[in-house]
């Protein structure tokens, strides 16, 4: 915690570019490639490594890839509307379907090895994370984009005209960097609050904080309580596979009503008091073979512990995926993926996915489609915006806009300091329990929010100001802010819709048929977006 822990910084590198992309997962890589395609100079910074960072790379994902016929698109759009609580937008959905179709075909052209069936027909509805992201890195480089790995952004730079770059640190050396850019794309993913759900520990809501500090709005932050099923000892979250599972109490009796989809609440409820076991005993031999070829990562933990998940019962847990598989995020004002702040764009899980998912995702395929589509649009628009600024861009006098002090000292020690660990754990203690975050009611949300507000106040008063572990400090700050937007929005939505379940308002209420915007830092505000005019679902 003291100044002596950290080394003095080793100077600063300052460069200019047209577009800065923050985050090197699916949406960031598509953004970078598409910004470069407009002729813009592009730098992509990643907190970790572009190619392995984030939720997609270590996993596999379905993709919302649909033949572009009116009938098939109509069916695809309709199939999700009720689940998402009718908060989607048909125009966005159609655009995402079309863009995803062409982007996935582009991946095919780039040489991604899509499987062929017995009739030689190619199947393009899923991607293996390691292969997909390795290919994306290669294409980003080919597009002439400069990739800076292990280079977390700590704050945005802005002037009276809007956002004009970002400043950060090279994690390996502690050297600071400053990139002045005509436009910035935030593609840093969602927030899973360090739950160790597969690949998500780099996803700490950093981009939300950056955007809010610049004055951008967020939307749908109440849709932030996704939990995934994983073996209790493991990081490998793969809820879809548990479609073929039966769930058991410790004594081997079946937990009635437990399931991977609608029965997840039963699992959550049971886990509050006792362990839950699963066995994938509904998968026949053929399905078992397909599963192994569909998601090799799923079997790694079992193989290593010599558990046969099809015949052995194993303990399971629910890992919080927060907004990574929730649908809330930075609010976009148009289909260029612009935020309300000039020069600032958002894409992928960092942005709200309500336009195509409403209040529920239920699977990675929509998120994958959203990432590649929104990333492409944000990149193209940011590229054009920056090029239009022309020589004016370099004359701007932009400065850092972090709300909290960022220590000039530096340490990447994992001795994070007692206070920092305590703050991180205090925030996790508010968002992780299903008692608060999954089964929501006014009273518990209010008292949790009060505690979170106190944590925020402490951070603002400078409790972490001298901590040289600046990256972890920003993560803790971002998680605190994210949790406050989540619960403020969750309190405001006095109904049950999408993944947002209120014990005190159990029905979907047509009077809440709108998206909820939030934002602000010291003072968190919440307000309804415009009412939606598309047909509200029949109340169930």
């Amino acid at each position, binding site marked *: 915690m003291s100044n002596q822990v950290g080394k003095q910084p080793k100077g600063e590198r300052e460069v200019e570019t047209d577009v800065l992309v923050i985050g090197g997962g699916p949406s960031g890589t598509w953004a970078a490639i598409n910004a470069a395609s407009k002729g813009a100079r592009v730098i992509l910074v990643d907190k970790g490594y572009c190619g392995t960072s984030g939720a997609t790379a270590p996993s596999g994902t379905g993709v919302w890839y649909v033949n572009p016929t009116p009938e098939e698109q109509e069916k695809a759009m309709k199939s999700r509307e009720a689940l998402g609580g009718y908060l989607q937008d048909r125009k966005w959905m159609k655009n995402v379907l079309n863009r995803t179709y062409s982007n996935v075909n582009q991946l095919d052209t780039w040489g991604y090895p899509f499987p062929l069936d017995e009739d030689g027909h190619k199947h393009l*509805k899923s991607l293996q994370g390691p292969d997909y992201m390795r290919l994306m890195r290669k294409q980003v480089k080919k597009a002439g984009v400069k990739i800076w790995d292990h280079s977390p952004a700590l704050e945005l730079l802005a002037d009276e005209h809007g956002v004009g770059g970002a400043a950060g640190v090279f994690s390996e050396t502690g050297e600071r960097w400053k990139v002045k850019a005509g436009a910035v794309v935030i593609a840093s993913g969602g927030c899973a609050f360090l739950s160790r759900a597969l690949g998500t520990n780099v996803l700490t809501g950093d981009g939300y904080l950056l955007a809010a500090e610049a004055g951008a709005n967020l939307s749908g932050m109440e849709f932030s309580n996704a939990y995934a099923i994983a073996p209790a000892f493991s990081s490998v979250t793969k809820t879809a596979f548990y479609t073929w599972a039966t769930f058991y109490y410790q004594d081997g009796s079946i937990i009635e009503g437990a399931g991977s989809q609608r029965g997840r609440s039963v699992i959550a409820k049971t886990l509050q008091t006792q362990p839950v076991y699963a066995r994938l005993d509904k998968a026949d031999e053929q399905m078992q073979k397909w599963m192994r070829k569909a998601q090799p990562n799923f079997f790694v933990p079992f193989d290593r512990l010599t558990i046969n998940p099809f015949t052995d019962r194993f303990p399971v847990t629910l890992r919080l995926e927060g907004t990574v598989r929730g649908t809330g995020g930075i609010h976009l004002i148009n289909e260029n993926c612009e935020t309300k702040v000039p020069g600032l764009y958002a894409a992928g899980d960092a942005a709200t996915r309500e336009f195509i998912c409403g209040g529920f995702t239920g699977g990675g395929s929509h998120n994958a489609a959203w990432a590649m589509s929104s990333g492409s649009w944000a990149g193209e628009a940011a590229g054009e915006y920056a090029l239009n600024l022309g020589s004016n861009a370099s004359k701007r006098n932009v400065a850092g806009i972090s709300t909290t002090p960022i220590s000039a000292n530096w340490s990447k020690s994992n001795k994070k300091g007692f206070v920092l660990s305590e703050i991180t754990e205090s925030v996790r203690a508010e968002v992780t329990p299903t008692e608060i975050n999954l089964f929501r009611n006014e009273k518990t949300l209010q008292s949790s929010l009060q505690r979170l507000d106190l944590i925020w106040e402490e951070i603002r008063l400078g409790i972490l100001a001298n901590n040289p572990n600046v990256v972890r400090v920003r993560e803790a700050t971002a998680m605190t802010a994210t949790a406050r937007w989540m619960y403020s929005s969750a309190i405001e939505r006095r109904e049950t819709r999408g993944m947002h379940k209120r014990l005190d308002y159990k029905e979907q209420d047509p009077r809440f048929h709108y998206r909820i915007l939030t934002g602000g830092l010291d003072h968190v505000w919440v307000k309804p977006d415009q009412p939606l005019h598309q047909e509200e679902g029949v109340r169930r």
Partner: protein
Amino acid sequence: MIEIISKSKCISCGLCVSVCPTGVFDQEKGKVPVIARKDDCQTCFMCEVYCPVDAMYVSPNVEEVAVNEEELVVSGILGSYRRELGWGKGQSSSAASDASYKMFQMMSKLPGH
């Protein structure tokens, strides 16, 4: 959680240091990398997948456990995930035999999907 960088197998290429998304490893020039920030390991297995000489072992447990390197070598576990993905020497990616589409076809026939 990352448990082993095999000193006998490691060629000190530094790839694991680069690809680890959470910056778990440190490396002195030319030396075998060390697990410097184990707590930050998120058990994503990416270092194993990228390691060209199968020198890494990520335990499937998210918490620290004791492991025995010799036993792991004998069991053939080192490098097994990389081979599963078809990323090993002389292999081609197993993405080409991804059977997700068959699962999706079955799932769409289940009630409620």
